[in-house]
């Protein structure tokens, strides 16, 4: 089987957001393969090799971009599962969301999120933000081998 090499896992339900984020990543010259999952349950299945990913041969991502407001299982629950797993907790998780609620920020940090970014409305700023996230987490930051 083909061993799929994945660098970024994007957890995002809104197709427009997916497209714009992909566009921004592309514009930032981040060539790493990107896998997109569209709801919370799918994200968990993907990370824990369950459901339709039961026999998948994909490797775990080097970076998870996580939206908080998701169908079925919300981002906070996913974060909780990731940070309670011995292996998955080593993967940096960046919350990329529209919400700036104190509560969400607090909960995310409480669970051990690595970064919390609020998506700017202005697309130029958004592209710049995505560029910096990719640049920092994939190039500058040193991470343990998972």
């Amino acid at each position: 089987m083909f061993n799929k090499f994945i660098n970024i896992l994007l957890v995002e339900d809104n197709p427009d957001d997916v497209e714009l984020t992909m566009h921004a990543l592309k514009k930032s010259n981040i060539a790493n393969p990107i896998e997109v999952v569209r709801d919370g349950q799918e994200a968990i299945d993907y990370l824990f090799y369950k459901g339709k990913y039961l026999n998948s041969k994909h490797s775990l991502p080097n970076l998870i971009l996580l939206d908080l407001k998701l169908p079925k299982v919300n981002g906070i629950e996913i974060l909780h599962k990731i940070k309670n797993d011995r292996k998955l907790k080593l993967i940096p998780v960046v919350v990329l969301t529209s919400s700036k609620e104190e509560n969400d920020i607090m909960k995310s940090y409480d669970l051990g999120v690595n970064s919390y970014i609020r998506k700017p409305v202005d697309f130029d700023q958004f592209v710049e933000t995505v560029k910096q996230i990719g640049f920092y987490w994939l190039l500058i930051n040193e991470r343990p081998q998972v």
Partner: protein
Amino acid sequence: MRVSLSVKILVVLFVSVAIVMTAVIYLTVTHQTEEMLKEVTANSEETASTIYAGIKYPMSVGDSGAVEKQLLEIKDRLKNIEVFICDTNKKIVFSTHLESIKKDLDNFILNKNILDELSYYLKSGELPEKTFEEQIGQKKYLVHIHTVQNQEECFRCHGPQKKVLGAILLRKSADKNYAAIATLKNNNMFVSILGIFAVILISHTLMVRVISRPVKRLAADIRELPMRISDGSYSVMTDVDRTDEVGDMQNSFNHMASELNEKTKALERSNIKIVKANKELEAFAYSVSHDLRAPLRNIDGFSKILLDEFSQQLDEKAVHYLRRVRNGTAQMSLLIDDMLAFSKIGRTELHLTPVNCGNIVNSIIEYYSKEIEDRNISIEIGELPVVRCDTIMMQSLFSNLVANALKFTRNTDNPRITIGYDENIEAIYIKDNGVGFDMEYHDKIFQVFQRLHLPEEYDGTGIGLAIVKRVVERHKGSVWAESELKKGTTFFIKLPVYKEG
């Protein structure tokens, strides 16, 4: 000091019963004493008359030996009686005490009152029947005076001039009588005290049952009422069959309690509603922040991609419209942010600490330093007070006011902003020489979404000053402005100043 109702009842009972009983005892004893004295007086009168009858004849014939004999006989017969017969000079003529004869009466009768009265009778010739008390040492006596009138048979020796010839005094030991009175007194007292206690015991028990106990129970009910209402175990007191004041009190209490119960329940219901509404509001704010922002970002994103990557296929007008679309999304994004900030100031708790306003203002000026430098704005910051306030809200307040001043001096030559503290009115002021406004609109400028300028003149959401007002109000302070068109505006903020110590 707390004195229970039951003790108070006891005291009142005791005092009133004791007063009544004491009066009764006093009156009884006095009456009985009087009765006894009357009896003694009557007896003495009789004795005196008998003695007088016995010695009258021997005296009229001048047989003093017979008189003495008579008296000695009386002494033998009536052991506890002493007899003194004196002349008008109070010299003892005959006596049961032989040694006292020819001596003055005042050697033997020691009560001066008796002697004085006797002198009076002897002079006036009145016929008294009077008994006096006399105390010699520990012993008590009763002394009876009986004057001897001058009569025909006496004229032979005494002549007819004098009305009174002398007096017979009978002294009788009264110890027995007084002992009897004392016993009477003691008996009365004993019975009375027993009576007092019996009366007090009975009435106290009754009164406690009738007044104190229901009141006590009512008090306990009142004390426990909030607790009972809060844990839902409240029920109206059942045994209200009394029709007196205590019954009224219980009725009123029951009425009050059930009303309180209803009010509490209503309050709880509305509180649940408020909490729910508040949660809904928060959910709404969250939704606004998240859901409204996402499509906005998409509009902006795709417009931008069109502008960037399809500009060759678009004519000038299309590019212009796409830019307008992007401006719109930027403005709406600002609006959402300001609206959220405004609602947040209304619902977050205040964390009050002493804050130096100077530090806040300096950091805000620092933030705008590039614009200030570029536009060559003269900034003057005076001494600012330490205020007890919420730091984050205060930052929001000053940043809105400074941003305002910067914005409205945009078209002014030599723009100048002064920030300071006016000791006289105890208010912080921010003064600019900008565009100013008509004071007619003074109250409007602090309302949400109220703007006095066209968007192309001065940008903004119309929320900034509403935020300022809300921050000030939450700190129980006040804000107002003084302005003149084209001359500039001064904002005043009055906050409770924190004074050290």
